[in-house]
Each structure stands twice: as C-alpha cells, then as structure tokens.
C-alpha cells in the first residue's frame, strides 16, 4: 500500500522542493509578505526557500537541532534551538545573533506583529518574550519570563492573544499587553497529550490537536452561548479488518482567507476541514511519511506540506524527509454551507 501511495504522491502531492533537510522537519512557515518558506529541521539547519522558484535561498547551521522557526519580516527570522538558544537570523547577510537562552530546549517560537516581540516556549516550563531590536545581551532583549505549569509544547498567536499549550494538557491564554498572569487557565478538552494549537484567524478561539487522532475547537469567550459551540472531532484514524488505528495529529494550519483549516497526521494524510459547517472539505492523497508541519502561503494559494517522520515510533528506518508545495484549488478550501435538508 505504501508503495502504491508513493507513486501518486509524486504526481498528486504537489511540487517537491529541491535540497530538503537531511533529517526530520520540525516546522515550516510561509512568509507573510512573499512566497518564501522558512524550514527548521532536526539536521541543525534553518533553510530559506523561494517556494515559487523552488530555490534554496539560504541556510543557517546551528549547533543543535532546530525545533521551530518563524519569520520576522522578509529579510530576517528567528529560530528556536534544542541547544536552549533563541536566535535571530538575517537572511541577506546570512548572519545570526543570539537573542537569549532558556534553561532547556526551546520548543516553539512566534513573532507577534502586534507587540513587536518574539515569544518562545520551552521545555524549561516557561515562556519568554524578547524584544528583537535590542540585540546585545540578554539583559537588553529579554522582556519577561512567565512560568507555566508544564513544558511548553505549542504556541499560537492571534492579535494580542497568545495560547500556550503545555504538557499535562494545560492550556493558558494570555493577553500580550498584560503577561503578568494568564487571562484564562484551562485544561485541554482532549484526554491525551496536546500536539498542536492554532488560533482561528478571526481571533475567536483555537483548534487543538492531540496524539489520539482528535481535534477540539474551543472559544475564548467564556459566555455560555460561546462555550456551547465548542466541540471536538476525530480524524486521522484508520479502520482495517476490525482494528482501529489512531494517529497523532501533528499539524494544524488555518487558511488565511476562508478560515478553514488543514490538519496533518502521522498517517501521512492532509485533511481540509470546515470548522463552522463541521464538514471535511478535502483529503489529499497520502504522503509517504507523517505530516510534520503545514503552512498556507499569505494569500492561501499555496500549501507547504512537510512529509517527515515525526518519531512517533522511535528510531526506525523511514522515508526521506520532503517538502511539498501544493497549489491550492479553491474548491478544496472554500467553506460549503450546510445543504438544506432534503425534502
């Protein structure tokens, strides 16, 4: 079956980028301004591609595995390293500065355009905010350190809201303007470890995925009416010969225009969902290995798919890591309103 899937994958999976990372892809992100793609990897590199031209435009080599990366603007970005270090990368000069350090590997990094700050979440059970403009020394760049109950696994930003998902299924919601304490402290609605959290582009809530093939849709508004809208659904599962197989959901990416979202799981599938009408809109053909990360380009016409083993079964031989750039057809991502009940 995997052999059969590999053939259409070459055709129907989109354009495969040349010079992919040599080890697992930890994250990839499209720029907010162009079709440039920033990719961080376990092979200790951060790579910048021009996804349109399929060109590797730059490469930064770090001392340790890179667990996350994000753009600052088109000329610079940030990386989060397993060597506890947060770095700022300047693409034009290929230079890098150290923004600061955590006490443990830095799992995730986000840049907030609203606050002009870099936010990092680490396994040292803290999140830290950095001012990227003060480049010399931690005492100048570090804005604040905010302890969490557990190791931070995923971050997401929308507007001034920051959602922090940690081990132990904690979810803390912050207002970037007042980081002294969380605006809301919650537990994940899902029973299992959180894999990924992503805010809705309209800022009303977030989607959270777990290792057990489920995604929950939650809302910030604590009123009864808003909370009654929340729900969870199962996905990335397989039923074969009476056996149910459940796969972790590694990645969620919201479409910047339609608000629909794609999920990627360890089953190698990318599904596109309409969260409002509770419909699956599309399923792309299976990729050779787990979907490690997903990102829509700024206008939503491209979807970057990292097909890369995510180590869910420990050390084992696996398909080579690859990045695919799909052009997204509108029918795949446009919400379909519920059809009227058939008479």
């Amino acid at each position, binding site marked *: *079956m995997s052999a*059969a*899937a590999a053939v*259409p994958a070459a055709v*129907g999976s989109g354009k495969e980028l040349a010079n992919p990372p040599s080890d*697992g892809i930890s994250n990839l992100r499209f720029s907010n301004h162009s079709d440039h793609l920033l990719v961080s990897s376990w092979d200790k590199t951060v790579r910048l591609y021009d996804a349109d031209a399929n060109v590797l435009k730059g490469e930064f080599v770090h001392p340790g*595995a890179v667990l996350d990366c994000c753009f600052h603007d088109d000329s610079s970005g940030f990386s989060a390293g*397993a060597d506890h270090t947060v770095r700022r990368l300047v693409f034009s000069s290929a230079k890098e500065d150290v923004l600061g350090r955590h006490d443990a590997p830095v*799992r995730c990094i986000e840049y907030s355009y609203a606050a002009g700050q870099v936010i990092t979440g680490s*396994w040292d059970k803290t999140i830290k905010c950095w001012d990227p403009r003060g480049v010399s020394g931690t005492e100048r760049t570090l804005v604040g350190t905010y302890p969490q109950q557990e*190791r931070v696994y995923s971050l997401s930003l929308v507007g001034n809201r920051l959602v922090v998902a940690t*081990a*132990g*299924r904690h979810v803390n919601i912050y207002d970037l303007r007042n980081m002294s304490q969380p605006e809301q402290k919650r537990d994940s609605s*899902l*029973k*299992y*470890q959180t*894999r990924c959290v992503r805010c809705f582009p309209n800022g009303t809530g977030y989607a959270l995925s777990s*290792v*057990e093939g*489920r995604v*929950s849709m939650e809302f910030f508004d604590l009123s009864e009416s808003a*909370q*009654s809208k*929340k*729900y*969870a*659904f*199962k*996905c990335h*599962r*397989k*039923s074969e010969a*009476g*056996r*149910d*197989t*459940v*796969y*972790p959901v590694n990645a969620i990416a919201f479409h910047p225009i339609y608000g629909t979202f794609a999920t990627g799981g360890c*089953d190698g*599938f990318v599904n596109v*969902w*309409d969260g409002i009408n*509770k*419909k*699956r*809109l*599309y*399923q*792309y*053909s299976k990729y050779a290995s787990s979907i490690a990360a997903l990102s829509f380009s700024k206008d939503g016409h491209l979807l970057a798919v990292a097909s890369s083993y995510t*180590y*869910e*079964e*420990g*050390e*084992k031989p696996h398909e080579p890591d690859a990045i695919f750039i799909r052009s997204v057809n509108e*029918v795949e991502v446009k919400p379909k309103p519920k059809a009227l009940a058939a008479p």
Partner: protein
Amino acid sequence: MSSAVKDQLHQMSTTCDSLLLELNVIWDEVGELDTARDRILLELEQECLEVYRRKVDQANRSRAQLRQTIAEAEAELAGICSAMGEPPGHDRQSNQKRHGLREELNAIFPYLEEMKKKKVKRWNQFVDVIDQIKMISSEIRPANFVPFKVPVDQSDLSLRKLGELTKELESLQKEKSDRLKQVIDHLNTLHSLCEVLGIDFKQTVYEVHPSLDEAEGSKNLSNTTIERLAAAVIRLRDTKIQRMQKLQDFASSMLELWNLMDTPLEEQQMFQNITCNIAASEQEITEPNTLSTDFLNYVESEVLRLEQLKASRMKDLVLKKKTELEEHRRHAHLIGEEGYAAEFSIEAIEAGAIDPSLVLEQIEGHIATVKEEAFSRKDVLEKVERWLNACEEEAWLEDYNKDDNRYNAGRGAHLTLKKAEKARILVNKIPGMVDVLRTKIVSWQNERGKEFTYDGVSLLSMLEEYTIVRQDKEQEKKRQRDQKKLQDQLKAEQEALYGSKPSPSKPQSTRKTPRHSMGGANRRLSLGGSTLQPPKTDMLHSKSVRAGKKTEEIATLSPGSRGLDIAGLPIKKLSFNASSLGETETPRKPFARITPGSNVSTPVRPIVNNIEGDENRTPKTFAALNPKTPMTVTAPMQMAMTPALANNVSANPVSLSYGKQEALASNNVSATPVSLVDDRPELTLPEDTEFSFEEKRLAVYLARQVA
C-alpha cells in the same frame, strides 16, 4: 439826474431870473430904496435855503430808517438761524455793494419770511414731543415729578436738541411698555392666585390702585404701584402656601384615616382632587377654588367627621393594627418574642382601662421598630431562605440516591436526573452558604448586641446543629470511599496479574444502546455525582461481569454494525463529567507496575483503539481514507464527546501506550514498542511523566551523541 428834472431845474432857474427881473422892474417903478431891495433879496435867499434844508433833512431821515429796518431784519434772521442751528444763508456784505438799501431790504425779506415759517414748523415738532414726554412722565413717575429740569423754550430748536428729546421720549416709551408688562404680569399672577384662593380679584386690584381695575384707559404705572402689586402677590402667595400646607395636612390625615378604617372607594372618590395634591408643590396647584376658605372648611369638616368615626371604631382599629403587626413579625421570622402582647389586650380597652388611641400609637411604634428590624434582618433572612431550600434539596437528593432504580429509563426519568444534577450543584454550595451565613449573623449580632432568632430559635445554634449533622454524614461517606479505594487497589493489582480491568464507571446504557441518545448521556453525566453516594456492596461483582461481557462484545462486533457517532452534546457538560470522573479515579502509574524497570516506550503505531467502546470506534466512512481516491466530496466530521473514553485509559501518552499494550494483549494485535538503551541513566527520561515525540527524539539524539 434825468434830463426832465434838469429841464425843470433849468426852467425853474429861468423862471427865477425872470421873476427877479420882474421884481426889479416893479421896484424901479416903485423906486424902492436899495436897502429895502437888498433886504427883500436877503429874505428871498433865506427862504430858499430854508426850503432846501428841510428837504435834505427829510431825505436823511428816510435813509436812516431804511438802514434800521435792514439791520433789524438781519438780526432777526440771524437769531432764527442760530436757534435752528443753521448757518445764515444771507450774505449782506456782498449784496451791499451792488444794490441800494431798498433792494437789499427787498432781498432779505422773503428769506426772513421763509425762515420764520420753518421755525414755526420746528417748534410745532418740539411741542409735540414735549407733550408726549410730559404725558408719559405723568403716567410712570410720581405726581410731583418735573419732567424738564431746564424748561424747553424757543432759544434752541436745533435738530440735535430735537433728536435728544425724541430719544428721551423713546426711552420713556420703552420704560412704559416694560412697566406695563410688569404690571400685567403681576396682575396675571394675582388673578391666578385670587382664583385659587377664592378671593375677589377686582377688589384686590382696586385696593392696590383704582386705575388698575379699569379694563380700558391708562393704568398708573408708577414705582409705588408696582411695589404694591408685588407686595400683594407675595402676600397672596404666602396665604396660598399656608393654606396648601393646611390642605395637605388634612389630606394626609384623611388618607391615614381611610387606610385605617378601610373607607369605601366611593367615599374616597369625592376627595380625590384633594388627596391627589398631597405631594404637589405650590406651583402645581392651579385649579380654581382649591384653596378657598370654604373649601378648606369643607375638607376640615370631613377630616373631623372621619376622626369621630375613628374614635367610635377604635377597638376594631386596634385589632386590625395588631394583626398587621403580627403579619410583619411573622414575615421577618421574629415570632417568639411576644412580651408586649398583654399591653394591647382588648379586654383592657373594653373595660376602658387604657386609652385606645394610646394603644394604637404604641402599636404603630412597634410596627415601625419591627419594620426597621426586618430591614436589618433582610439580608440574613434571604440567605437563610436559600440555605433552607438547599437543605430541602439535600434531603431530596439523599432520598433519591437511596433509590436503586433511579437510572431506569422510565417516563420523566431524564427530568429527575436533571433535577438531581442541579441538586448536587446546590448541595455542594451548602458549606459555603453556611459559612457566609454564620459570618453575617455574627456581624449582625455584634452590631446589635443581641441574638439573631429565627422564629424564636437562635439561628446560630440551628447552623451549628446542621453542621454537626453534615460532618457526621461526610465522615460516613469518607469511610465508605476509603473502603472503595481499597477495593479498587485490589482490583488494579488483580488486573496487573490478569490483564483487563473492569471499568467502574462504564455506563450500562452504552451496552444497551449502540448509539448515544440524549438520555444515555445524561445518565452518564449524573454518574459523576453519584459516586458520592455509598457504593453498593455488589458493585465489584457486577463490574467484573460487565467487563467480561464487553470483551466478548468487542470480539464479535463488525465495523459495519457501527454507525456514525456524531454526538450533539456540548463539550461543557462533558468536561464536567470528565472532571468528576477524574476526581473519583485514583491516579494510575501502571507503567512501572507492569514492566518494572523497563525502558521508555513510545506510543505505538498502529494504535489499536478498540477497547474504548462504541464512541471511539471508527465508523466505516473511514473507508474513504483510501489514498487512491482523493475525496472531493464533503464528509461529515466525526465529532464525538471528547472525554468519553473509557476510564481505564488515563490521559498521558505513556499510559496510553500502556493501554494499547494491554489492549494488544487482550486482543492479540501485534505491535513493537521501541526501547531506549538503558545503560545511560542520565539520558533516559523519567518514567512517570509524559513526553512528546520531540523530547524523546532529542533524548535519543543526545544519547547517540554521547555514544
């Protein structure tokens, strides 16, 4: 000199000569003496001279007269011009050269006449204005007022002066109209006051000034009149206020009496117009005759009548008031302090021992204090009310929990379940309520220095009693819980030896109905609370039976028999369920127990998930996952109640993997857990915490690096 006059003179001189010759002839004949002749000639000469002189004098006189006339005319002209403030239009000097005196005179005269006419006209204007000023002055000033300090005469008739006068007139006219307005204002006020007070308006006005009464004609507008008018207005207003207060006093006493004696509405209707004014301000009372003395007397008589009526019905009233007092006390739960009851005994009144009105007053006083006290107790009483309600619910819940058949799906069972759910929430709040109530009571007691009684019983002691009873109950519950925990532990050990563990909270309904109905879910939800109740003795037994059944069922179920499981349940309720389940569950760390000292295992793939019962079984629509046919059709999302997993799988991935292993063991599915090399303890991750794939990966990478 004209030639005719010359000729005349010439003839005259010839005639004189011939007459002289004739005289000489006569004389010669006569032979007059020469001396005589000389004398006559001299006489002749002298007579001629005389005649000349006379003529010259006459001419001279006439010239002088002419000059005088001109001078006078010019003086008059100049006077008029200066009075009128105009430049003299006649230039005498220039005229003198060209004409004779007579012509000059002729030139001056018409001009003079014209100026005179002008002057008369101007004067008339002055007179007109002055007359008006005098007239208005006489109206608005006191009688002895002199309008013009400097009398106006004809010496200054300039336009400027006229302007001044006109201005004065205008200001006077304005003043007059202002005063008129003021007077009319006063008169209007006076009129309305008179009307309300029932006083003759004409009479009042006539007293102020006779001229004001007249409808037509000029009114006296002097300061004194206005002052007197204002005084009259104030006087009447004072009267009005006095009367109004009086009326309002009457009205309020009337209302009291009505209220006291239950006067029928028809009788009250007659005085509606009075009582409706009870809170009116002075300006609001405008109805004619409302405050006339007659009317006041009428109202007063009615009040007196009512008073008399009241006196005659005093006994009834005392009784009525007394019941009112009792009502208030009952409402405020103040019953039990009947110390004063004797004071109001009817017998004493009947016997004439006490003045009933005094008793009435006393009762009124008591009502007031009770009302005040009730107000101070209101806050506490509300809380007591809620507490009592909650206690009622608690009692109901206890009864309900004793009902073994409470989960049977009968008619209306879902309603009872809902009620039980609500009751549980309420009961959980009781300790807090009691605490709040206690602090409230203590502060109330400290503030007032007396005990807070509720229907005669000390509320604090009530609370104490309740707390003791509740503590007893709790202890009993705790004991039972501990016992249950022990049983669970026993079970867990058993399970470690033999595999599958019975699920303690697995709802029966899930077996009965493959798809979740609302009722089933509700039943499950109420389980969270039901764990508070004492466990039944046969629980262990029934559970193990259930577990056995379940494994059978799983083995026989085919994927096709499972429907879609879209549960329309809101997550909120579910999370409540989850948390309550979580509370009752003992945290498990079974990993260490099962494979003691083993290496970290990662979640396995494929993860077989079929131990979880219906809600987690993947429906057959997943056939659409077939990679060869990418879906363009929208498939419904598989929404399920998130925490609806069976309880034997706890939330961390390590135990998840354990759960899988267990499942694999029981279901015979193969999986290969990946192990870490265990010879470097500093690189292995702690076993009892969850880890993400990345953390494990990094551990492996670091281990490799060290190696």
